[in-house]
């Protein structure tokens, strides 16, 4: 029954979970292709105690093949490591053993002895360079039998970030949603504006009175994990800027104005443009809203996200307030 097409011993080395999962899934799939009845034991260190390995590698009644995956081999205890080493000297012939290892110095002795015993090594390190990530994106589309332009890959990385799982998910999504060659326009249609979503963009859109965009940016900023307190302090800063330039004190130089608004001097022009359609009472109302919201996002309210949404709504509509 034993087959030679899948290595009986594999070490998956690296800290990128997605790639590790794929490598393990690949091995399991290869074994299943040969023997659909194959038994898979996927074990994390917590589930492994003395004797576990012996029990999962002992011959089974019906002789089906078994795949044993030992996850995070670097976290195995000394007793278990001894058991694994003993198994390496006397492997069962219908068992495929896969060890995953984060690749650090911890538990390196075990990894070395596994490799010495003739294990196939699969490297799954996190891609650190931009170029590696570009290659990864290309690979993702190729796996699905599609083509992607370099610009498009770059645009995708810019808006999704560097988390490999998110990149992979974005690629899958694009493959499913589009047809033909994926170029920069296609990416722009699906991933517009996410990467630069910060509290400051939310504040800018809100004081410009562009409510739909402001709310959209707010949702993005919250979904990428920007803290509500930071978003509100950005709103405060935006409103403060308005107050400073909308009704400046007499005899104050532009340099001082910029300092009071807490912006670099060249931003004054933008601020003045933003402030053009604001009335003093509108600004005062916005300041009040920001103060209320600060209390709400710091535990005074039940739902910080709702409080921010309300703040954005109030600020955008305070812009047209007259009087």
């Amino acid at each position, binding site marked *: 029954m034993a087959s030679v097409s899948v290595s009986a011993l594999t070490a998956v080395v690296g800290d990128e979970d997605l790639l590790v999962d794929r490598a393990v899934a690949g091995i399991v799939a290869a074994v299943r292709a040969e023997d659909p009845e194959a038994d898979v034991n996927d074990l994390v260190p917590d589930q492994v105690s003395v004797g576990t390995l012996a029990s999962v590698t002992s011959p089974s009644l019906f002789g089906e093949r078994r795949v044993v995956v030992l996850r995070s081999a670097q976290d195995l205890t000394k007793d278990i490591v001894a058991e694994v080493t003993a198994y390496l000297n006397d492997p069962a012939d219908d068992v495929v053993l896969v060890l995953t290892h984060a690749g650090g110095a911890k538990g390196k002795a075990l990894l070395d002895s596994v490799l010495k015993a003739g294990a196939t090594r699969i490297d799954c390190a996190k891609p650190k360079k931009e170029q590696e990530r570009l290659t990864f994106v290309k690979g993702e589309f190729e796996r699905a039998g599609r083509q992607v332009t370099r610009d498009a890959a770059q645009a995708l990385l810019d808006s999704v970030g560097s988390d490999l799982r998110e990149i992979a998910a974005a690629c899958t999504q694009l493959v499913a949603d589009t047809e033909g060659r994926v170029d920069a326009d296609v990416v722009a249609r699906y991933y517009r504006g996410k990467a630069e979503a910060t509290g400051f963009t939310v504040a800018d859109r809100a004081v410009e009175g562009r409510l739909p965009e402001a709310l959209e940016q707010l949702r993005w900023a919250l979904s990428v994990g920007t803290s509500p307190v930071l978003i509100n*302090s950005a709103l*405060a800063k935006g409103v*403060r800027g*308005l*107050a*400073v*330039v*909308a*009704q*400046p*004190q*007499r005899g*104050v130089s532009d340099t001082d*104005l910029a300092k*009071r*608004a807490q912006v670099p001097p060249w931003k004054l022009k933008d601020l003045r443009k933003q402030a053009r359609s604001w009335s*003093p*009472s509108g*600004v*005062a109302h916005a*300041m*009040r809203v*920001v*103060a*209320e919201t*600060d*209390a709400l996002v*710091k*535990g*005074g309210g039940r739902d910080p996200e709702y409080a921010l949404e309300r703040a954005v709504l109030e600020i955008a509509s305070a812009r047209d307030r007259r009087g």
Partner: protein
Amino acid sequence: MSVFDELVGQDTVAAQLRSAAGAAHAWLTGGDSAGMTHAWLFTGPPGSGRTEAARAFAAALQCPDGGCGHCDHCHQVFGGTHADVLFVRPSGLSFGIDRARELVLEAASRPTGGRFRVVLFEDADRATEAASNALLKAIEEPSPRTVWLLCTPTAEDMLVTIKSRCREVTLRTPTTRAIAEFVERRDGVSPEVAAEAARASAGQIERARRLATDPETRERRAEVLSIPTRLDSLGACVSAAARLYELAENEAKATTSALDERERNELKAAFGEGSTGKGVAKAVRGAAGALKDLEERQKRRATRIKRDTYDVALLDLATFYRDVLAVQLGAEVELATASRQDDLWRVARAGTPEATLRRLDAIMECRERIAANVHPQIALEAMTSALYMG
């Protein structure tokens, strides 16, 4: 002379405490204890001298002559060094259950001097609910010689279960004349300065003394009081808020920076930094956790100082608008900010009483927001712009 002479304008309270101290003395010598009890709650508006009253009572309990003011016992109580008087002064934002449990143990021991074991708890309202509950039993039925003295602005600040176990001593806001006389006698300033400080203090004795003796405090008050007339644009609102923010930051820094550094060095020295020998390296490593702890406490202390500074400034501002309201309504009351009569009249003529009330609300709302941890600058900006808009 008696320790109760130091209480400003609190004749009723002084008489009550004097007779209680007399009863306590009688009880010690085998007599009747009517008029004395084991738990007292000192309440009164800020600055009315709650702590001073409690301290005078503590001295009267320890002193064989019922608070003569010049024996060792009296001196030690006023110096804060009396072995049988436990001073509790929460320096952080709150007083937690751990400290409360320690306090219960400390309070239960017998007095070393043979008279009373007194626990003087300032700002008892800072005790958290859990801490108050931990103190409950000890306050209800303390050891025979233990006396609890709790101080808090109003009885409503305390858990109702604590309140019901204490006898209440309510101090009133001392009159301006009583404060002026006290400041004049105590700090040796001229009657005019004393009168002005007493008026400006709005019934707060310590504040009156600081205003009479410290030019910086006077300057800061003048700056705060000039805000209403300077708010002529939204830009000015932002500047005024920034200035108030800066004042509080500086105040906290001035008080804490030297202290923080000294405490850090003392702690490091206690863990053996700078010394040599076996085991020192390990001990110094152990200091990291303790240092972090200390920094956390220092940060809380700085926050409290800042909040107190904002509170003083905002209350000064509130007195100004209160006076504006008095002028607008033609009320015949003493004006705390009479020295700025021109400003008062100008602001009073420029607005309506309704607007003044809205402004007072904005100031009080700002106090609440700062207490609720809203960033002070944001809270202050909302307030100054509300003052400007009216």
